[in-house]
């Protein structure tokens, strides 16, 4: 049996373990990688591989960026930065038709600039924005659609954990990935807001205007965005000028977030412990997936399957853009049935060499597929953000949430097309990093 065939069998076995036996994604990748190496080389080689690889992965300095950035986001989350951001966005946008939904997306974008998780954003923005939108008689479709779609910005706008994992796994610069994703994130946020404008033009009753605020109130409200601007400026500015490494950026961001929340007295001891607890749990399951992916990646490399696929696809008599859209389609379908991070780590060993072979820039490709996979967080049947929103807004049925989301899905496709036509939107900011 050729190594490539073993690789294909390994891929099917892993999918079967995940889909049919409820084995967590990280465990399934590790198990399949282990079994595959044992089959291809020897059982002893597979044993030695897990001992060495797991320690190397766990003690990697580069991976410490994950708990550090998650900690920064959770300190901000537990010290109610979102509430202050929402209040600021509400003061500026609330008086226009659909303004509260726009404020929700703007606050999501702001929170995304200091947090890399979309479920945390979805949970907190539902609690914060839902009561106000209900108070002003917003339609449930617009309420839930705007919250669920807005919260996906958490993964697109830096610092993003998905981008960090992509960078670590492919050896690409995390700072370049962060800078490359700023403009796409802003485009996506702007298009989401534009979608709200269009929805409210078609259904004016869905988003009635809120109370008007004076210019003075607007200026005063800006202090609600102070922490976000300071932390984002500090982290991204430091990375831009090469003042610190990405892991140190996480440490500096966490330290400053902690300092600011203590200074504001917005973080009680219980919330501080909750921030640590959440950070540890989320980091541990992310790093288990990465460790599993490392073992699985070693197995795939031994089979040479990724290179064989890359060679085969590159030789096809079709334009590279066609193959790219096939990859995008796989990510859209895959994202609809499983978590973005897991999907990314399963598919990167296959698709990354292929993208490189097709001469796509690795930074551009990373940002593009991050946007594609994040769509999965709001598309049925998995759509984790939709479940989070429906779980909190208990009287709104899940079908209404998905209906609301459907209005926002074209914005992702438009963003992807724009990034394909104008790759410089990603590459120019990325190349300016020192």
């Amino acid at each position, binding site marked *: 049996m050729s190594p490539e065939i073993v690789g294909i069998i390994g891929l099917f076995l892993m999918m079967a373990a995940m889909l049919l036996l409820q084995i967590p994604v990280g465990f399934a990748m590790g198990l399949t990688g282990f079994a595959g190496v044992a089959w291809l080389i020897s059982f002893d080689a597979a044993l030695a591989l897990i*001992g060495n690889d*797991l320690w190397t992965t766990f003690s990697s300095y580069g991976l410490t960026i994950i708990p550090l950035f998650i900690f920064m986001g959770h300190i901000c989350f537990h010290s109610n930065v979102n509430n202050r951001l929402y209040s600021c966005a509400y003061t500026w946008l609330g008086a226009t038709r659909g303004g509260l939904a726009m404020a929700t997306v703007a606050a999501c974008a702001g929170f995304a600039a200091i947090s890399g998780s979309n479920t945390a954003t979805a949970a907190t923005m539902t609690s914060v924005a839902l009561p106000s939108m209900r108070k002003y008689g917003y339609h449930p479709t617009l309420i839930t659609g705007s919250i669920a779609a807005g919260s996906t910005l958490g993964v697109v706008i830096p610092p993003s954990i998905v981008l960090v994992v992509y960078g670590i796994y492919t050896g690409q610069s995390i700072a370049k990935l962060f800078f490359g994703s700023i403009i796409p994130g802003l485009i996506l946020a702007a298009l989401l807001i534009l979608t709200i404008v269009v929805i409210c033009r078609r259904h004016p009753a869905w988003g009635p205007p809120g109370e008007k605020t004076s210019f003075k109130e607007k200026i005063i409200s800006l202090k609600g965005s102070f922490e976000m601007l300071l932390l984002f400026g500090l982290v991204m500015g430091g990375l831009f000028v090469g003042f610190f490494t990405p892991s*140190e950026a996480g440490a500096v961001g966490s330290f400053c977030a902690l300092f600011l929340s203590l200074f504001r007295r917005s973080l009680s001891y219980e919330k501080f412990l909750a921030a640590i607890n959440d950070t540890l749990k989320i980091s541990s399951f992310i790093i288990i997936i990465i460790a599993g992916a490392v073992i699985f990646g070693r197995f795939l490399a031994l089979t040479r399957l990724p290179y064989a696929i890359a060679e085969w696809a590159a030789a096809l008599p079709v334009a590279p853009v066609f193959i790219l859209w096939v990859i995008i389609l796989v990510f859209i379908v895959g994202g609809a049935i499983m*978590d973005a991070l897991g999907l990314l780590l399963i598919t990167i060993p296959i698709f990354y060499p292929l993208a490189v072979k097709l001469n796509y820039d690795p930074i551009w490709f990373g940002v593009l597929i991050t946007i594609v996979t994040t769509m999965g967080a709001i598309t049925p049947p998995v759509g984790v953000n939709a479940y989070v929103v429906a779980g909190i807004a208990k009287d709104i049925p899940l079908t209404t949430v998905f209906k609301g989301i459907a209005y926002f899905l074209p914005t992702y496709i438009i963003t992807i097309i724009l990034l394909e036509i104008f790759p410089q939107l990603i590459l120019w900011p990325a190349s300016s990093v020192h």
Partner: protein
Amino acid sequence: MKNNSFRNFLIRFQQFKLLLAGISLLLMVIIGFANVVCRNLWQPLKGSFELIGYLGAITIALSLGSAQLEKKHIIVDIITRKYSPGWRRLTSTIGHFCGALFFSLAAWQTWLWGDTIRQAGETSETLHMVFYPFIYLTAFGFAFLALVLVSDLGLSLKKIPAEHTETS
């Protein structure tokens, strides 16, 4: 009953481990921040990168059981959610058994790796400190995760459902 007390022991022990992991996380933050300040004002803190790496290893290793205890690991349940209760119990039993086996092997092999490093007298590159205790702690983290999976296996066999949560 026995499984319940074993489970309770695991939960209590995990809380203690989380406390240590939390301290390790805070140390990472402090060392990382201090290194940036010292490097730009004076000179870098010697060995801060390797210390942060080792602390990162034990932070994660000591947290490993908590995600499993709270069923936070990412699973794809698009098919399994349609299983009958009996079939679901069977598949989760197989899944927990495979997981327990894998992490037992991981603990054993990581421990052996620690032994190799200890016996070779290997020290870290910059600080020249022994680092095998960190490897042993990581092995211990895997062993604890394997124990949690054994406990889950016991629950599956006793027909007590264990629901997973999908998170990102």
